[in-house]
């Protein structure tokens, strides 16, 4: 019983930390992007204000049960992804619920939220939501391929589907990291990360000038608040996962922050520099070089 309570407390702390870290990352990146635009940018605490304001809306309307469940599914997806990833190698508090087959579960959770969201957004009835969901799912399917190939290559390489074991295998020096031991799989995975983060050129889902904001068009007040919460958690969860898979994980919280920040900056640097792809361009891109890289990685380790 005490074990369960302690685990719950640790999970709570872990989620709280990762939520605030996600918001901080958001605020920091907005500032950095603003500088690249030649602007001053919003204060670094702007994401907290926004999320507070959204939760503090005095009214909210629902379009039905699925509309209500959409954000919940999304948050469940984000939380689920994070909770099964050991955030810091060797830390009890941040080990979360990691177990031996967790990589598969995490891969499932990454996409679970998106599907839930698609259902919720559909219930809202806004045409822009439907268009964006269609775009999002198409793109998701296409970057899923290099990502899956990359993960398969890793599983073959490390003979494990446990993230903790994969991280453990990379310990003992920078050259043990997957990025050096299996660069092909790493690059395939990083390309998938670009797509997953939905920054330009892969932001067809949100596409501000086309389907104004995409799936959450009808989401407001606390519904939107949940989505904003999820966005912070899910972003960090993805980054932690990629850090664990390719960058040797982290043994303390500062290493984790540094590595995830660097990973996120990859998306940001690319995002600021390039304009948006159209849906078919995006799909063609993911099925091209990244998929080939993934395939090559798998084949090399099969041999």
């Amino acid at each position, binding site marked *: 019983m005490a074990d369960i309570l302690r685990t719950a407390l640790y999970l709570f702390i872990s989620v709280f930390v990762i939520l605030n870290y996600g918001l901080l990352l958001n605020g920091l990146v*907005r500032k950095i992007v*603003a500088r690249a*635009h*030649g*602007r*001053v*940018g*919003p*204060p670094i605490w*702007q994401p907290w*204000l*926004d999320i*507070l*304001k*959204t939760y*503090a*809306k*005095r*009214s*909210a*309307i629902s379009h039905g049960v699925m509309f209500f469940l959409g954000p919940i599914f999304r948050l469940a997806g984000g939380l689920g992804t994070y909770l099964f990833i050991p955030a810091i190698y060797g830390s009890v508090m941040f080990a979360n619920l990691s177990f031996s087959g967790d990589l598969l579960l995490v891969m499932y959770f990454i996409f679970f939220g998106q599907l839930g969201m698609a259902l919720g957004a559909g219930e809202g009835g*806004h045409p822009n939501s439907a268009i964006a969901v269609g775009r999002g799912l198409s793109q998701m399917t296409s970057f899923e391929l290099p990502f899956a190939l990359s993960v398969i290559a890793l599983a073959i390489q490390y003979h494990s589907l446990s993230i903790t074991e994969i991280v453990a295998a990379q310990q003992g020096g920078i050259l043990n990291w997957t990025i050096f031991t299996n660069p092909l799989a790493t690059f395939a995975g990083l390309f998938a990360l670009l797509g997953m983060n939905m920054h330009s050129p892969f932001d067809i889902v949100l596409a*501000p000038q086309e389907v*104004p*904001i995409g799936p*959450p*068009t*009808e*989401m*407001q*007040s606390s519904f*939107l608040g949940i989505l904003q919460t999820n966005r912070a958690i899910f972003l960090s969860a993805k980054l932690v996962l990629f850090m664990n898979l390719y960058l040797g994980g982290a043994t303390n919280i500062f290493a984790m922050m540094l590595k995830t920040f660097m990973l996120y900056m990859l998306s940001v640097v690319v995002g600021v520099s390039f304009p948006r792809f159209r849906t078919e361009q995006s799909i063609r891109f993911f099925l091209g070089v990244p998929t080939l890289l993934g395939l090559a990685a798998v084949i090399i380790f099969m041999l």
Partner: protein
Amino acid sequence: MTKETKHNPSILENNGLPEFERDYFCDARPEQSRPLAKYIEKFLNWARANSLWLLGFGTGCGAVELRPLMTARYDMYRYGIAPRPTPRQSSVFIIGGYASVKTTKRIIRSYEQMQQPKFVIALGSCPINGGMYWDSYNTINRIDHYIPVDVYIAGCMPRPESIIAGFDLLKKLIKEGQAEGANKYIENLDWYKANQKKIIKDWNMPDYNW
């Protein structure tokens, strides 16, 4: 402004809609929202004042003056102002100058779909007293007869600096808890509806949009 205490029963039955569509829309009166306990509300108002999401609906010439605000020169993001493409998520509606009857109809629909608390900034001469289009057959003369307005900015069109000044005033009002336009709208709903229905001849929309 006249405040009617008795509710007019003729509105909110969605009479303007065809029979088969009436079921799709709610016809209950909207309810006023109550502020929370003093200090909590004060804290929330501070957050609201510093996170103003404005509705990206360019209703008139003023739409063109909002664009510079996003540029590096003015950078409205540093004031916590950001455009949102949907009324559901926005808290500030900027009436960008003149509003034709056709636009006014959309303004009302969009305004009602915004979630409380919501604020309105009227830009330029036209929403105040008609401006250049004071004698036009199809342009309203004063927006405050149709939706409650918190801040007016004089000009034709006001420069982006003036709009920033308008946001400053709005922030002050929000922090002082005076920007209760949404409640005012619901309180005087019959009056606003009567005014709206006077000019919008084909009322083929629900009486109130949630």
